[in-house]
């Protein structure tokens, strides 16, 4: 059993939790993820690590309540327990294997889209702790969906907030903001890390390929065990089949087949939707979910 020590609603339906998990807190690194399971009958839900405290033995997770399982998760409070938390899974970010000099020379920009800002945070924090100044773009549809802005401002040299509807910060999506920084503000970047919805990562990568800037993305496909056992999370990267759970979750974004990844994620969406529909409609649900025809 893994106790929830703190819960905070960062934005509408986006929650942060500190969970007591000493083994993970001790051995986790930025870029890795955990899998949580609420109770005996719940699903295994993969979530990228947002922060960890080695002394306190806690890991921080951030999630958006969209499907049946994450809605149940949102109902948990501090003092409640997850039945299972396992990790750290996947490989740490490649960047943390580099020296501060090498990192500084890279001229790093981090891009977090929506709830994807959460997995960007520990990497930016790592850079700060190792004396590396980095820039960061945080984007969301609207002001009320911007998360972790204060924490990010503490960790990054420059933070650029952008909203699709212009309700806060720059008016536009993360790509518009990136173009503005490079074309109008004289910024230069040698390496980008972009984490967010697959569609966002796809378009960032199309742009950065054009601009010739290497880009790392973090994939969060459907998973079951998270240890390489099931192959549900397989992706095409540079024409090769790779498992996000053990070969990733971070990959060279210019090599990822995003269109295939989006189609595979659709399976997840409709299935998640299916579980939700069953919850609402019980046995009376026949059709309409896009799955059962």
């Amino acid at each position, binding site marked *: 059993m893994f106790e929830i020590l703190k819960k905070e609603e960062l934005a509408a339906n986006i929650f942060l939790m500190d969970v007591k998990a000493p*083994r*993970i807190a001790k*051995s986790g690194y930025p870029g890795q993820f955990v899998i949580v*399971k609420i109770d005996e*009958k*719940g*699903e*295994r839900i993969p979530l990228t690590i947002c922060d960890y405290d080695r002394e306190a033995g806690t890991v921080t997770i951030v999630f958006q309540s969209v499907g*049946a*399982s994450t809605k149940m998760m949102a109902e948990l409070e501090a003092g409640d327990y997850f*039945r*299972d*938390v*396992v*990790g*750290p*899974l996947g490989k740490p970010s490649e960047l943390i294997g580099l020296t501060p000099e090498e990192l500084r020379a890279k001229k790093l920009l981090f891009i977090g889209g929506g709830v994807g800002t959460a997995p960007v945070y520990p990497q930016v924090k790592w850079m700060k702790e190792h004396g590396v100044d980095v820039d960061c773009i945080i984007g969301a549809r609207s002001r009320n969906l911007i998360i972790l802005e204060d924490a990010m401002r503490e960790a990054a040299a420059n933070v650029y907030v952008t909203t699709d509807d212009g309700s806060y910060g720059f008016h536009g999506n993360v790509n518009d903001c990136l173009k503005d920084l490079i074309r109008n503000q004289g910024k230069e970047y040698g390496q980008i890390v972009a984490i967010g919805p697959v569609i966002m990562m796809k378009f960032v990568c199309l742009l950065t390929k054009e601009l010739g800037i290497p880009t790392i993305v973090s994939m969060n496909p459907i998973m*079951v*065990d998270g*240890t*390489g*056992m*099931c*192959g*549900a999370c*397989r*992706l*095409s990267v540079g024409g090769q*089949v790779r498992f996000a759970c*053990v070969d990733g979750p971070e990959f060279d974004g210019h090599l990822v087949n995003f269109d*295939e990844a989006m*189609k*595979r994620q*659709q*399976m997840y969406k409709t*299935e*998640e939707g*299916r*579980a939700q529909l*069953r919850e609402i409609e019980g046995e009376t649900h026949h059709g309409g979910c896009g*799955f059962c025809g």
Partner: protein
Amino acid sequence: MEIDVLKRVPVREQDPEVRAKNFEEVCYGYNKEEAMAEASRCLKCKNPRCVTGCPVMIDIPGFIKEIQEGNIEQAYRVISNYSSLPAVCGRVCPQESQCEAKCVRGIKGEPVSIGKLERFAADTAIESGVRPVPPAQRKGKKVAVIGSGPAGLTCAGDLARMGYDVHVFEALHEPGGVLVYGIPEFRLPKEKVVRHEIENVKALGVTIETNVVVGKSVTVDELMEEEGFDAVFIGSGAGLPRFMGIPGENANGVFSANEYLTRSNLMKAFDESYDTPIAAGKKVAVVGGGNVAMDAARTALRLGAEVYIVYRRSEKELPARAEEVHHAKEEGIIFKLLTNPKQVLVDERGWVKGIECIGMELGEPDASGRRRPVEKPGSEFVLDVDTVIMALGTSPNPLISSTTKGLEVNSHKCIVAEEEFGRTTKEGVFAGGDAVTGAATVILAMGAGKAAAKGIDNYLSGKEQ
């Protein structure tokens, strides 16, 4: 009860038409009268050949004699001296190629139903609540066992019986390994059998910590240097699925058998009260001919699908147990033999819409001794399915070997370990089961766990030179 000594006492099974729609166990097993009658067929050979066919060398005539005399609890005690998982082995061991293959009764008639008798003794013990007890004498030494599948549980059970403090690490959220995520409920009931056997191992004083991925959460070196374990057994299995590498394999609706079975068995997708989704499929092709392929096919059938087994060799070469093939056929699985997939056909939404296959014929024997299947040009056809399950075998996960200093693996990523005692290239570290051999059987893994327990005892008590 009257019997024909040349014939086995038949075992009662669920009707194929009924069981094709449920997850209840297929075979009901013997009752006491049937078991005693079957036991009377045993010749009590002075030189029992059956024992030599058993990887853990159970005193087979010994326990059968107890059953014949009606001492069922005593029969269970005899088996327990050799095996930690008799209720499991009585169900999933390939007895027909092991103990029963050597039975002298089998020369003229049918061999004694050793597996069914073992199951009966173990099930009776479960019902009467007989549990093993830990030894009073403690050795004062700690052993870490990685993986709680058949190899790990056997090794842990044997070491606990010798008086070692054993701590088992399991990566998933339930202990049992392949017994829980791989083998389906209708072949091996989880609550009644697997959980009970695991409780028996715990009753010996073994602790099991779930949700620890060794190699990620903690390394073997850390276990030995920081957590004070005097020896380590690695029984992490062969969990990595293989795919064919054919076009369309990443389409929605193509699953590894591991994923499909894990969703159904471990995550209990077949049970409405669990949240796990599964794409059951209406028409399913399972590619492969082993026990895992049969398990996946029969699971899909029970979830309501029409199911094909697609296998590139002929019936004779099917690696699955004869009993599993027989059960699958009875239940209505359609066998497409001498057939190999060329590509998965995908619709515009990214979902499977069929599988293009080609007919095969058998040529010269290959390295495995089986006749190599070769394509028959022009025999391509499309099998109309919406789901494809790849059951092509598995290989060991490199998570542990790649993070442990001085642990050698071979070209197949299998850990190099001596057969006799499971000793690896790293001092104090032993290994066995599928992690060493690649995917094999439950009982071979148990045999390796047992051998390693002896090896660890030799090592820790200084008997090893």
